[in-house]
């Protein structure tokens, strides 16, 4: 089968990213993978600041596209994130992609950001060797917690999702309650290394619920109540308590994620389990999920994304674009617009 050279553009939230991928059904070459992170700006504000984000997407997008293409039009198709995300941020990438589609006459496809995360696992050649449908994906990030059943490329069904806060948000907000800086996930993971996860008994929300949905909202109150007595206590005891509470919180989140994922993998008799999204950087989540699958479902392949593709990037968007093009899914550049509430 002929290879496709795909230009990928991603501006849905706080990263501007552009990539060029050479893709066929059996091989992927990442020719360009440029990400201009805006994390330092957001650290200052303690979160994503949309207008700041949208404003700097404009010069960054132009600069990264020029850099990736070297002034030419050497691509066969364009893949751009069209949602979900911030409308104002999404439109920066979409407008750039539309202009390029018009100028080049090449096909364009509006990619779902979530689908991009699914494709991030496929960028790993080891994962591609063991890639066999049906697959189950655990998508965990600041804005997402979903269990997705993949029957084929670009054929998905969400079988479970968070009913309130995303897992990454649970990390960030409980970290905030403990007085830790943003982003809270890595901070909690770091403290947890020296903490005892059994010191605080925190709830495992919805773990026994037969559905595959999640709920992390109640964890905030539980952590606040657990932390309050220590906050007023002597400083040296406070530090160890903070490490223990971080470990206990992390374990509470991980336990639910792993339990539901394993249960879903069994029920839908999948051949492999993907772990993707920003929270998949969490080492404890990676090793514990791998271990649990090995114990209970030894024939199921564990397919986590490479660390370099877990946060927002355009290589995964280009890859998801290829999946769509294989199925004949294209967009009309005249009509392509941001779809902030887009679902899979």
């Amino acid at each position, binding site marked *: 089968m002929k290879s496709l050279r795909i230009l990928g553009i991603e501006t849905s*939230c706080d990263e501007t990213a552009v990539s060029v991928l050479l893709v066929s059904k059996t091989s992927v070459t990442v020719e360009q993978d440029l990400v201009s992170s805006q994390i330092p700006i957001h650290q200052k504000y303690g*979160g994503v*600041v949309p207008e700041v984000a*949208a404003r700097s997407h404009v010069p960054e997008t132009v600069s990264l596209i020029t850099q990736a293409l070297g002034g030419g039009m050497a691509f066969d198709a364009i893949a751009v994130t069209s949602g979900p995300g*911030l409308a104002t941020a999404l439109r920066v990438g979409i407008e750039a992609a539309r202009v390029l589609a018009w100028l080049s006459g090449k096909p364009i496809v509006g990619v779902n950001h979530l689908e991009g995360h699914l494709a991030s696992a496929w960028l790993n050649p080891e994962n591609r060797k063991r890639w066999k449908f049906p697959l189950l994906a655990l998508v965990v990030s600041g804005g997402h917690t979903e269990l997705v059943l993949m029957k084929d490329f670009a054929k998905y069904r969400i079988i479970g999702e968070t009913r309130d806060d995303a897992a990454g948000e649970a990390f960030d*907000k409980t970290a905030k309650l403990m007085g830790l800086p943003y982003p809270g996930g890595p901070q909690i993971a770091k403290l947890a290394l020296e903490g005892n996860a059994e010191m605080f008994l925190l709830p495992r929300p919805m773990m026994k619920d037969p559905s595959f949905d999640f709920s992390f909202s109640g964890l905030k109150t539980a952590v606040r109540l657990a932390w309050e007595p220590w906050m007023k206590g002597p400083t040296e005891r406070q530090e160890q308590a903070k490490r223990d509470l971080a470990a206990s919180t992390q374990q509470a989140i991980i336990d639910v994620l792993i339990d539901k994922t394993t249960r879903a993998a069994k029920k839908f008799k999948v051949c492999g389990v993907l772990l993707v999204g920003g929270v998949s950087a969490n080492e404890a989540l990676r090793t514990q999920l791998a271990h649990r699958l090995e114990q209970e479902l030894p024939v199921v392949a564990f397919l986590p994304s490479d660390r370099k593709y877990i946060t927002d990037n355009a290589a995964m968007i280009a890859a998801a674009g290829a999946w769509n093009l294989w199925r004949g899914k294209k967009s009309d550049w005249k009509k392509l617009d941001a779809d902030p509430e887009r679902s899979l």
Partner: protein
Amino acid sequence: MKFIVSRVEDWDVVARAILEPLHPGMAIRLTGPLGAGKTTLVQALAQRLGVKRIPKSPTFSLMRSYSFPPTIFGLARLIHIDAYRLESVSDAHVLGLDEELAGGDTALAVEWAENLGHLLDGLACIDVKIDVDPGDGVRRVSVLFTA
């Protein structure tokens, strides 16, 4: 109006009181600490309005919009906004609220409304303040209408 919320189901009583006068173009301002139940209250509002999806936290996406069959006042859409991350009013313009309200069928439910500065000026507001009892976790909710 004052309410005591000790079980999740109790939010429905608060939701009913808020929805009774809710017209398009109005803003529900929600205040309370992290974990107070602001998003839970929006879920109760959405359920009563007949929204099929369950509202999720808009902290990362900043805003999420929910449609439902029109009420007797012609309200057919609720936009849930979390302004927690907005540092200045100029950042808030990115939400495009004027455009969102222009259709005449939309009301807002806003967390951290103070970060929107004067953007809500001129809108009739319903102020919802949630206090959490540190001992038993019971929520004390006050609802106040301002024209």
